[in-house]
């Protein structure tokens, strides 16, 4: 569960990236986080994950405050950043072993999980190559494998399906569904509205740093009295952009 309470983030004193954001993301659901470019999605995700300090308000993940109890909070989530270009000169297997060490993943679980997931993603055979030689999609897959390796309760994914081939994209979506079905949390940002319609139990729409809507797809249709697709509602909601 992620609790965001009255969170504000300012850049350079006068530019407010996120303003008084309140959001409660429950267990057992997949939540899509939408908004136009520059709306504050990445800033919010970076505050949830502890990458950016919070100016006002608080964020807790599974009851652990990210500012006051960062290590415990960080143990409870797995994060896939929007640019998977890290540790490029490590080999795939070295990266995964490194992540295993950082998250204290036991040896036997580590070996089995790495083998299973990398075979599903079709990257098992390149684990001995440096990440530098991987394509964007392969880099995305190795980062997702790193997240799945320590099996966190909360998944936070920034544009997770970008660059993935259809088979891997399908596999990730299935994994997200399975994770939520186990009563755990999946929170992800995307620009692909079809994915949101297919996958999400609830959506949160942010614009200019403030939350415009949060609820189920049906609640959204009711609120905006529309039978239109999410794309139409989204465009209407953010039309002055």
């Amino acid at each position, binding site marked *: 569960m992620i609790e965001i309470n009255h969170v504000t983030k300012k850049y350079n004193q006068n530019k407010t990236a996120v303003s008084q954001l309140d959001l409660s993301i429950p267990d057992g659901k997949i939540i899509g986080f939408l908004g136009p470019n520059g709306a504050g999605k990445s800033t919010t995700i970076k505050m949830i994950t*502890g990458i950016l*300090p919070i100016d006002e308000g608080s964020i807790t993940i599974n009851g652990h405050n990210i500012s006051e109890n960062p290590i415990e909070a*960080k143990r409870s989530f797995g994060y896939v950043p929007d*640019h998977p270009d890290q540790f490029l000169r490590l080999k795939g*297997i070295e990266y995964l072993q*490194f992540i295993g060490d950082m*998250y204290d993943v036991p040896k036997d679980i580590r070996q089995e999980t790495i083998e299973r997931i990398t075979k599903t993603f079709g990257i098992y055979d390149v684990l001995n190559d440096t990440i530098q*030689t991987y394509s964007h999609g392969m880099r995305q897959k190795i980062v997702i494998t790193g997240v799945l390796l320590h099996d966190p309760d909360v998944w936070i994914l920034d544009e997770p399906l970008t660059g993935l081939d259809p088979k891997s994209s399908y596999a990730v979506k299935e994994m997200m569904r399975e994770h939520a079905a186990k009563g755990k949390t999946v929170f992800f940002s995307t620009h692909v509205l079809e994915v949101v319609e297919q996958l999400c139990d609830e959506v949160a729409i942010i614009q200019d740093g403030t939350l415009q809507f949060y609820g189920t797809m049906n609640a959204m249709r009711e609120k905006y009295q529309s039978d239109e697709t999410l794309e139409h509602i989204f465009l209407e909601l953010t039309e002055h952009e």
Partner: protein
Amino acid sequence: MNKTIQLSKIMMKMHFSWSSKSTGQKMNTAIIGVLTLLMLVIWFWFLDSIIAGLYTILSPAGLSNMILGLALLLVSILLLFTSLPSILTSFYFSDDIETYIPLPLHPYQIILGKSIGPLVSVYGFTLFGLGPVFLLYGMYSGASIGYYLIALITLLLFPIVPFILASILMMIVMRYANISKNKDRTKVFAGVFSLVFIIGINVVIRLNQDAGNVSQDVGKWLAEQEHVLWNTTKFLPNVFLATESLNGQLPLWQSLLAFIAFILITLMSATIFLLAGQKLYYHGVRGVSGGGKSRKSVDIHSSNKNLTPFWSYTRKEVKLVFRTPSFFINCVVQNLFAPIFLAIMLFLDNGIGELTDQIGTVDGKYLLIGMIGFTLFVLGTNPTATTAISREGRSWFTNLYMPVHPKTILFSKAFSAFLIQGISLVILFAVFAFVINIPLIYIILWLCLALGTSWFSNLFGVYLDAKQPKLNWSDEQQVFKARFVPLQSMLIQACGFGIFLVIVWKLPFTSVALTMGLLLLGICAAIYLTQRLLHSIAKNEFHRIQ
């Protein structure tokens, strides 16, 4: 032509833009500029004594123009070799190459724009190396205004030919050797080659370190070797022609003819460069970013070892330093520079025997302080710790979301730098123990102190880097360029520790035990203080590192 200029402008902006630099970084660049000017003054003074001596010896025989010939030849060779790594990086391995290749431009246009970065350092070298020589020669020979005018134009045109030779060499190598598979190894090779070359030049200079002796010896040698010099310059006709055009002893028409020929040769080589770029560049550059694939299949079982976050992080740091060419050259290879240099100097001086004899008569106290002082200098110049955070670049954020305590990250970084510096300690140990034959007891005492000094030096380096990190770089080489932190670290260590060493040196006792005790106490205090500083960064400022 218009497109070429536009492209060059954009590339120049990307390379030298000030907009992304913080006020602190701008200040640092300004301070480095002032320091460079100061060094130029010292260099000018040093060259003055050499040229004055040479002029006195060579002038009566009418051979004074050989001063110019020698300077032009040396600078040419230096430019040829030192520009190889920057040409390789700029032309073939910089991150933005793939942005330019799809543009509707000719290869020669891209290569012209890509030349600007390396050319700036080439011109810097030329200005530093030839500027004072031209000026001093003019002063001693009482040259006319025409000489200075030709000297100025020569200064502007001269670096072009060596740069082009190095560029064409690299283009041919990259065209025909399938280097893309070993991209990183190629970079390391070019870097090491240049460093070895610089050590070589230093060794030659070291052979005649005294400025007076240099001019005496070289003067005599030159007078005997007149033909050799001119025979050598035949291979670099621009050196011969530039020397002749600046030679006041020749009739005016001959000098002018040489000058025109010099300009023509420069223009011709520029044309050849563009033609070679057009023909060869794309063949070499395309596919370079592909990288090599390992044929070995993965063995998860054997690589599966549980390590604590501290050890795992340290291992990752060391691996990344060894695998990233710029990091490897600056942190590891440069690490070897000072100790190897010391060993070579001792061998060349043929003074090992003398030194070993003297060591027997020196008080243990002074021996120990001398050894630690030199160790501090060697360790202080190493940038592994002072770039520990900056090396992460845009990946730094991964440290912020992993469930690892900031303290673990910072201390792992210091420890990995400590391990890498261990290489120079091993070489120093070998030099002290087997070359200079310092008694075993002092070697053991030195080792205890050196390990402590190294730990302190690395803690302090990481602390300084955490205070002023440079994370927004697009080329790994930028981590080490135009940064004040390594110099700052060295100066603070030299001042703080240096003063402490001088005080211990001056204190009126000769007891080795007391010296050891005091030094150990000083080092422990320094370690304690820097550990506290690093703890405070981990607690209060870690998330502000962005």
